[in-house]
């Protein structure tokens, strides 16, 4: 294939992250046997030697003049998308488009996307986004920096992105943001520098810890905070040596810091070769942090903040420190503790290998035009539901919202919902579905008012349970929708809507997301002498499930059960959480939390806890904070208990927690609150039921209580021991990220997309 790459950034020298990214990507294209014509818009200064290097690296190089002074300044607080695309470039682009017809035109940065408009429909158009520019100025101001470079709003960025067929995002979080804006297919292609991994240190040598960065004030501030937290005695005694390199070192030269300042750093590899540990204490900001990736690529163990590892899906707590100061705390442990040093080394190595493999697989799309074009014809799937998932206030809302966000990476999603949607509801739901999908309310169809029986009501195909669950308005409205919309597959949410599988016009690929096996749940209720609100026999439920091509199982126990009954049908698709920070609360009065909806399981579990466990802690100087609708049914006079009721900011609530409990003793499915506690790294005491279907982690990632006495003892331990809380928090976080990070949904969603892609493909609707 012939690639024309239009870039305002040179590929040589690779002394900045964006240049390295471009260089690595183009090298891959060359390795695939493609021709690369590199069209450099001279927005950045380079030497003649650099130009010669570019000419040597690529098949053809075109240099286009550019005068930054002629670039338009922001107007109305933002840049318009073409502010930097100078009129002189237009004639140049016309000329290039007349002279050659590349197979693919790739533009670096959305603000040069106008270049794509000069090429015909047969040319595949790609934007390598590098960053999200929507509201970038607001983001910078929030972290104390003056807006610089390019920043715009969603409407302007959309104009640019929509000029492409495919948009490359550098990491998944940016992919999700860009896909909310654009109808182009957004695909993540990460970046791993093409460098030789240095040999590992022997682990028992003195600790040399290093950082290299520019003089950006954010870097300088973060490094200072990090240095303040490092144990001064360890440095003074010579147990540890800290080396700061690059512009950051220059900026620190007049200050008294306990570090060796290395400036200039001519080459990265020799600098990294002197280190046993690289740190990245970066605070604030978004995007992939090249510094982190660079250190990992050089084979160095790394400790860093949550922001420093964004996009790399880290698991260890020391790869997700909450602040630059916490990076310092982890570094102190690294200096003192040989086994921790090995732990950091191993975890960094695993992360580097996994990320390199991920990037390699992402790059494979460039091997052929077929593979590139396959992203334009993603299968379109219809979600059929009555869950107000955009509210994200209950477990099932959260499950569906996260699932759709993740699914957008490999499928296009429409949602058909049995709800009346306000303007705000529709906007919130549409944001989750993204710009390539659409949300349809059944209220938009005449069938929603119908009193006439639907044809299915007379059919023997409908099971007894389905007859009872049937809404003829839902059924008719869905059939009306299917008369004008076609799909490669559909996913029904919950068995209570299973009767809709009979609707005419549905595609062959039928999938049900059960959330729970109702008959098993009913059995569990009756074990405790209770009646479940939804009654279905095991036989009938399994009969209904057997009619679906695939069943999405939310947790492992149910997946195993379904797989044993219906081999090759059950797809494990756990609930997953986007990357969240590890909770590190230091409340003067310890805060124990519980979150729950107003379900009998939550009510009974919490009431048992309040009557049988909590009295032991009346005088322990701790408070129980309860959030969610479960508060409605609780007595208000329990000592040391604060009822918050329904809360909008669950994240904020969980970030304030010191300890969490889940005392439910019956129920079913997966307990989303347990997943949340683990992912936030909140040390927790859980019952067996609270961990149902979560494989492993017992007394490592959480404390399991199998009796009242154990519940009291475990809670007592966590209250009195900050060390136990700290250790459990780190273990919970790592376990949560591994089991329930967004990555955990990838295999299941990929399998669904693969099954759907074998179905007839349909174009994206305008």
């Amino acid at each position: 294939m012939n690639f024309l790459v239009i870039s305002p950034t040179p590929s040589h020298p690779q002394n900045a992250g964006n240049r390295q990214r471009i260089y690595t990507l183009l090298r891959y294209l060359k390795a695939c046997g493609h021709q690369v014509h590199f069209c450099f818009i001279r927005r950045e200064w380079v030497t003649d030697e650099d130009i010669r290097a570019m000419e040597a690296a690529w098949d053809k190089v075109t240099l286009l003049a550019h005068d930054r002074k002629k670039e338009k300044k922001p107007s109305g607080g933002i840049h318009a998308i073409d502010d930097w695309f100078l009129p002189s470039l237009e004639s140049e682009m016309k000329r290039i488009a007349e002279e050659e017809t590349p197979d693919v035109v790739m533009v670096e940065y959305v603000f040069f996307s106008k270049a794509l408009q000069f090429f015909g429909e047969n040319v595949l158009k790609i934007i390598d986004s590098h960053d999200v520019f929507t509201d970038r100025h607001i983001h910078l101001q929030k972290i104390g920096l003056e807006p610089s470079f390019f920043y715009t709003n969603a409407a302007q960025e959309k104009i640019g992105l929509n000029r492409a067929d495919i948009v490359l995002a550098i990491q998944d979080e940016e992919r999700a943001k860009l896909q909310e804006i654009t109808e182009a297919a957004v695909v993540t292609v990460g970046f791993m520098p093409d460098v030789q991994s240095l040999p590992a240190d022997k682990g028992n040598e003195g600790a040399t810890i290093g950082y290299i960065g520019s003089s950006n004030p954010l870097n300088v501030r973060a490094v200072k905070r990090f240095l303040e937290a490092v144990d001064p005695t360890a440095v003074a005694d010579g147990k540890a040596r800290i080396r700061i390199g690059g512009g950051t070192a220059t900026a620190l030269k007049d200050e008294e810091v306990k570090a060796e300042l290395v400036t200039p750093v001519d080459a990265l590899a020799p600098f990294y070769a002197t280190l046993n540990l690289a740190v990245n204490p970066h605070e604030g900001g978004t995007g992939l942090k090249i510094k982190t990736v660079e250190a990992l690529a050089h084979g160095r163990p790394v400790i860093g903040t949550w922001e420093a590892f964004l996009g790399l899906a880290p698991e260890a707590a020391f790869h997700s420190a909450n602040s630059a100061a916490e990076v310092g705390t982890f570094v102190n442990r690294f200096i003192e503790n040989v086994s921790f040093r090995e732990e950091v080394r191993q975890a960094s190595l695993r992360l580097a290998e996994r990320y390199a493999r991920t990037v390699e697989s992402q790059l494979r799309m460039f091997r052929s035009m077929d593979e590139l074009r396959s992203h334009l014809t993603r299968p379109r799937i219809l979600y059929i539901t009555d869950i107000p998932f955009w509210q994200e206030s209950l477990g099932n809302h959260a499950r569906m919202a996260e699932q759709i966000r993740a699914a957008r990476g490999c499928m296009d999603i429409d949602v058909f919902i049995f709800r009346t949607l306000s303007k705000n509801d529709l906007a919130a739901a549409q944001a989750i579905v993204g710009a390539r999908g659409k949300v349809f309310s059944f209220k938009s169809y005449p069938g929603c008012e119908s009193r006439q029986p639907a044809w299915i009501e007379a059919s023997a195909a409908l099971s007894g349970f389905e007859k009872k669950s049937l809404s003829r308005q839902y059924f008719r409205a869905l059939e009306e929708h299917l008369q004008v919309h076609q799909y490669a597959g559909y996913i029904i949410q919950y068995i209570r809507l299973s009767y809709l599988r009979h609707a005419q016009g549905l595609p062959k690929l039928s999938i049900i997301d059960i959330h729970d096996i109702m008959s098993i749940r009913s059995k569990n209720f009756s074990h405790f002498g209770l009646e479940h609100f939804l009654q279905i026999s095991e036989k009938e439920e399994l009969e209904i499930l057997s009619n679906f091509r695939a069943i999405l199982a939310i947790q492992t126990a149910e997946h195993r059960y379904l797989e044993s009954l219906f081999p090759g049908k059950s797809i494990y698709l756990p609930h997953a959480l986007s990357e969240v920070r590890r909770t590190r609360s230091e409340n003067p009065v310890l805060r124990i939390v519980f979150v729950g909806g107003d379900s009998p399981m939550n009510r009974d579990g919490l009431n048992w806890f309040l009557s049988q466990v909590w009295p032991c802690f009346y005088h322990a100087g701790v408070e129980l904070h309860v959030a969610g609708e479960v508060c409605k049914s609780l007595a208000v006079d329990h000592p040391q208990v604060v009822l918050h009721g329904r809360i909008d900011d669950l994240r904020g609530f969980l970030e304030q927690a010191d300890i969490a409990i889940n005392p439910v003793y019956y129920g079913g499915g997966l307990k989303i609150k347990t997943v949340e506690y683990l992912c936030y790294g909140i040390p927790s005491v859980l019952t067996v039921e609270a961990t149902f279907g979560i494989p492993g982690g017992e007394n490592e990632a959480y404390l399991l209580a199998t009796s009242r006495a154990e519940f009291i003892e475990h809670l007592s331990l966590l209250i009195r021991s900050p060390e136990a809380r700290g250790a459990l928090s780190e273990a919970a976080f790592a376990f949560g990220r591994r089991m329930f990070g967004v990555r955990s949904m990838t295999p299941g969603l990929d399998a669904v997309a693969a099954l759907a892609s074998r179905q007839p493909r349909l174009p994206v609707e305008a």
Partner: protein
Amino acid sequence: MSRSTSLSSFINLKGGMAADEQIDLTLAAAHTEKLELELKPLLAAVDPATAALAQGVLTALGRVLADVAVLRQSIEQTYRSRADRIRIDPLPFIPQDRRSVAPVQEAQFELYAGDAEFSGTGWHAPETDGVSSWRWSGVEPASTILLPTLGGGRLHLILDMQMPFGLKFTDVAVTALINQTRLDLKAQNPNSSRCNFEADFELPDDEGFSSFALILQGERYRDPREAANPDPRELGVGVHKISMSRREK
């Protein structure tokens, strides 16, 4: 799980001794508080030395009353209904099959065409010659089957396949995809009608519960024989066995 600070140093899993003590203390304190409340007017009227003495007596009395309560509860425990026991401590009643099981990752996997577990779309029913079983693809343009990921990583796949109607694999294109990625299949002996195809491929790491879709695409053939009763079906490539093993993770 590797951690620098082991939780085992913090947790006493020997059976609630500390909790028992804490419950006893709580119970004693509750009785003492109740007595204090009842005697509050009297205690307020006496001098500090007498009040301190009275406080000591009340605390001791609280302990005695707690012991009596525990004794009474122990006796009552024998006669308590199941419902009552659930009310006090339901946790031991949670069925043991709800307990979490640590994942065990299998390193290999085999599936024969005759196995009940061989399920998917686009396949004809299994057939056998008494020695071996197989399934023809070709019911749809693509035949799919969900297979376990074995925890992901680098995997090796062997497909024991057969061409229909005695045709040979020479010059025949069989396309296999892992999810949506095309496999680079290598035939061991393509100049035959039955042949093992092998391929290495990679999947993202997972915890061993996930599946991927194996998709077979290729030509569909009609029975070329001019027999009286030719096979009326359109058949694609047949599969005898699917084997998979994990190379590394």
